[in-house]
């Protein structure tokens, strides 16, 4: 609705409700105030997290040279990269079939199955996965986390890829077929390049979901493997320290950077769609 709302009576704007602006303003303040508070406190000089004692970046330095935090960050990165790569490949294949494979029996069942991890409450997934690993005697650690993450990353990678496929027309692929490209060549040189922004977007969502996950990781991590959210949780449990604020701020920054990039990639994808 880009047209200007016509004025009917003086002071009467069509479709306008009094207080709407203020309400929206309040809404955004509510949404962002906690994050602003957190970021502000991470620059607090004091030894206590909650009392403001002047601006300083010393806690960033302290957190940066902390071995435990470095290890946790490295674990988070390894897990997220592995889970993202596997989940994105599986999701791309599934999306190609479900968006392009036409109608077939079991199509909606397959769709339900791929998106199942979105519906099941995380805590249920977490304890179910733990029970599964326990019953087959699987050693809990990095590998068990990677497997669990891969599963719940699949739908997050799947949805943007499918959305992109459904927005693509098939003209170019048909043209490639007319020019004697075989199915693989058409896929490799026509479909895949056009689909690439969708795949990148899906992979980014999967990555951020993996890095941020807490409950499932908590249940299937075992003793040795600590990720950043687990480390933060452990610190909060021991009491609030300025270091928690610092790592939390860094995690916030990572997520915001990724989602902003995702936003631009999918926006660019939309403009390409018409060609």
């Amino acid at each position, binding site marked *: *609705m880009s*047209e200007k*709302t016509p004025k009917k009576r003086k002071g009467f704007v069509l*479709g*306008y*409700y009094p207080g*709407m602006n203020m*309400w*929206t303003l309040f*809404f*955004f303040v509510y*949404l962002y105030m906690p*994050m602003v*508070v*957190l970021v502000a406190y991470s620059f607090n000089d004091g030894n206590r*997290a*909650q009392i403001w004692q002047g601006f300083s970046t010393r806690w960033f330095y302290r957190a940066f040279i902390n071995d435990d935090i470095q290890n946790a960050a490295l674990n988070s990165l390894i897990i997220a990269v592995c889970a993202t790569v596997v989940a994105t490949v599986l999701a791309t*294949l*599934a999306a*190609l*079939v*479900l968006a392009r*494979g*036409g109608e*077939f029996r079991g199509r909606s069942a*397959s769709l339900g*199955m*791929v998106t199942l*991890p979105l*519906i*099941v*409450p*995380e*805590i*249920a*997934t977490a*304890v*179910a*996965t*733990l*029970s*599964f690993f326990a019953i087959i005697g699987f050693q809990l650690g990095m590998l068990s986390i990677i*497997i669990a993450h*891969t599963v719940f990353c*699949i739908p997050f990678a799947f949805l943007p890829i499918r959305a992109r496929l459904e927005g693509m027309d098939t003209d170019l692929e048909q043209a490639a077929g007319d020019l004697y490209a*075989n199915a*693989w060549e058409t896929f490799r040189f026509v479909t895949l390049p056009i689909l690439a922004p969708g795949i990148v977007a899906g992979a980014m*969502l999967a990555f951020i979901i993996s890095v941020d996950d*807490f*409950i499932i990781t*908590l*249940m299937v991590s075992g003793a040795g493997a600590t990720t950043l*959210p687990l480390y*933060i949780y452990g610190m909060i449990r021991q009491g*609030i320290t300025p270091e928690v604020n610092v790592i939390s701020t860094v995690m916030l920054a990572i*997520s*915001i950077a990724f989602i*902003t990039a995702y*936003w631009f990639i999918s*926006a660019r994808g939309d403009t390409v769609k018409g060609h």
Partner: protein
Amino acid sequence: MNLPRSIAARRALGLAPALITVAIFMVLPMLILLVFSFLEADPYGGVEPRFSVEAYIQLLYEIDFDDALVFNPIYLGIIWRSIFLALVATVGCLILGFPVAYFITRQDPRMQNLMLYLITLPFWTNQLVRVYSWILILAKDGVIEQPLKAVGILDGSLGMMYSNGAIAIGLVYSYLPLMVLPIYASLEKLDFRLIEAAHDLYADRMKVMREIITPLAMPGIIAGCILVFVPSLGAFIAPDLLGGGKKLMLGSLIHLQFASSRNWPFGSAIAICLLMLVMVALMVQARSAAKRRAMEAGR
């Protein structure tokens, strides 16, 4: 490289990896959970392979000193608190989110995009971190209490933390975007001429809201309510951090059984209860969606 010729083979090849992964690591574990809930607990963690419905009995009763079953309302209380707080969070998100979703549709496309981005952004940031930031605000000597104390209005503490209210704030904060986005999606297509026509027919603003905007937003409202209610029901982080582990909800109770209490069958039974509540919520949604479609088809 050649792809398999038959379309059926291609479909199978494409779908199989994802489906098998989800089947083995998601569906099978759920079934194991169901089986576990009917087994006996191993006091050292895990289960004893003997059939028992003890876990479900434990939800309602406890065993007295002389082996008699005594009604125990603790766990029902936790289930009730979970449902209650999830409902409060859902209503809170609706009240907070609906006017905003409508307001966004009234903006020009650039502004709409910016606002949608700002609403989506917190959702993709770490939930643990977002809930934690509320501790800084609500805690004793936190952002709210410090200034009040400084000007001398407040003496002592408001005790905002570790309350149902704090948990509700955390839940609303965690899932708010899931309410706004579906409502926005259904209102985005709203034909503005309908509102104009209604005003021409002497409807006032309230009547337009009641008779036109709300009915058209209904699919989005229902979807949003389900999207908020379901994760709130099984939430772990908000009740754990803001409820301080005293005000248990289903999520924290399940975690407790698998972590420190070491009663896996009981934890499994609660998880199955949670899944059943979720299924009821999804069925309600599916039915209302089907009803709506039937109504639209009948027009």
